[in-house]
């Protein structure tokens, strides 16, 4: 009886090992089913979905105009103090003073891509871009100025 159990145990054990090896062996002789991606060689074919959150950018149109009024709603919505907005006063042709955006400072090194600033923006001035390769040699390069030099606010955005 003991020998019979012993032999059946050995048989079951060897069979269970062979079942597993059959699975791995199947993939060994079918390399077409391997789904490994060769990053960064495939960088050109890499397609990221449009909702992917990589970094915050400010939308500029062809006239170098943005829609940011400097209302600081994004600065208040941010949980990590990633955004700092510096405003200035523009003087209109009629001589009126008007609050406008001077510098939109974005600390990428503090950002967790939570999307709260995008949702808070009343004029859709900022959006999330798909770029995810943020490595730089100097940490100070991660602090960015989002409004392009010489840009101004679009007509009609309040």
């Amino acid at each position, binding site marked *: 009886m003991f020998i019979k159990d012993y032999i059946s145990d050995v048989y*079951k*054990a060897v069979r*269970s*090992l062979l*079942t*597993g090896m*059959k*699975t*791995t062996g199947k993939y060994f002789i079918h390399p077409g089913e391997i*789904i490994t991606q060769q990053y960064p060689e495939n960088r050109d074919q890499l397609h*990221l*979905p449009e*909702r*992917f*959150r990589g970094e915050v950018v400010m939308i500029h149109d062809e006239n170098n105009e943005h829609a940011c009024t400097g209302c600081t709603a994004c600065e208040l*919505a941010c*949980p990590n103090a990633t955004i700092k907005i510096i405003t200035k006063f523009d003087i209109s042709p009629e001589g009126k003073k008007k609050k406008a955006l001077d510098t939109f400072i974005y600390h990428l090194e503090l950002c*967790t*891509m*939570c*999307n*709260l600033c995008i*949702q808070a923006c009343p004029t859709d001035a900022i959006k*999330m871009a798909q770029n995810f390769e943020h490595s730089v040699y100097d940490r100070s390069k991660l602090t960015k100025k989002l409004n392009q030099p010489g840009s101004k606010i679009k007509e009609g955005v309040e």
Partner: protein
Amino acid sequence: MYTETQIIKSGAPASIAGALDGTGELVINVGPQHPATHGVLHLVITLNGETIRKIEPHLGYIHRSIEKMCESLSYRQFIYVTSRMDYLSSHINNHACALTVEKGLQLEIPPRAQVIRVLMDELTRVASHELWWGAMAMDLGAFTPFFYAFRERETITDIMEETCGARLTMNYICPGGVNYDIHPNFQRRVKDFIQLFKSKIHEYDELVTGNIIFQNRMKGVGTLSREDAISFGCTGPVARGSGVSSDIRKLFPYEIYDKLNFEEITETAGDSFARYMVRIREMHQSISIIEQLIDNIPEGDFQAKTKAVLKLPKGEFYSRVETARGELGVYIVSEGGTTPYRIKFRSPGFSNLSALDHMARGSKLGDLVAMMGTLDLVIPDIDR
């Protein structure tokens, strides 16, 4: 090489010196940097030969004081931080927080948002269990299952990436519903995933479940009795492996779980293999829940109308959900302002870890890896 006398003369601790004569105990450290601990967990293990006498977990290496941080964040902002607790089921953490805030605001959630939330929860649960399966097999010495698990998990993270915008820390749930509607491709891709999962799940059983080496290393190892599982406060698959009915989705249904048709998985053995089987069978249940819902997402709003600044009334609010690891409770004390006065997370990993010492006493050091693997420890969840 040091000789015995050299060690004793050099003033080594009594524990080491005692071990050398074969009578005393030896204290060794596993972690904080150790491949078997899946993070910065530090276990101080007292050994007698190869037998474990005592295990003392030393915590705090990844403590970020999330509870204190949340006190300075508004009710919209604090949800994203909780993704960083149990990062493998971050969606379910966010869900628990949103439920607590909604309880305080007495918000009615649109049915579409409820269904989307439950769908995402179950996808997260499958992804988390798949990663656990691969990592546990890797702990026990098999490297290949890790890649097989990640093949299926990658499909889920791609779905998450498309709809939520991120792969791991989604931040998709907000008080009142979800942040944006599902992607037009969502239903098709989830159905593709279900097909892929069903065509591949038998490989899991062939590779690991039926394998004699894994069975011998898991059966009868780290047995936790039903009474001990209750007294240590274990929840989730750890408690259900010991036969304790602890599924929050069944006991305290939230969202639409009371209308769904699914089983609560329990095993009676209480050993590592029982906990393993609970998780494997739970994946099938989650897939069945997804199948019930994926064609029946009701039309309508995905978000209830809320004010820009949320203010909870004065009082205390508690809600709980079933994460992939067990019961997550969120307790908020509000003074009526825009930020919580005090917040407390009852995380499943902390209570499950407390059972490790009791489980491991008297067993061999090599079995500890199997016990830790089946406890499914996520260290940022324990430390917060």
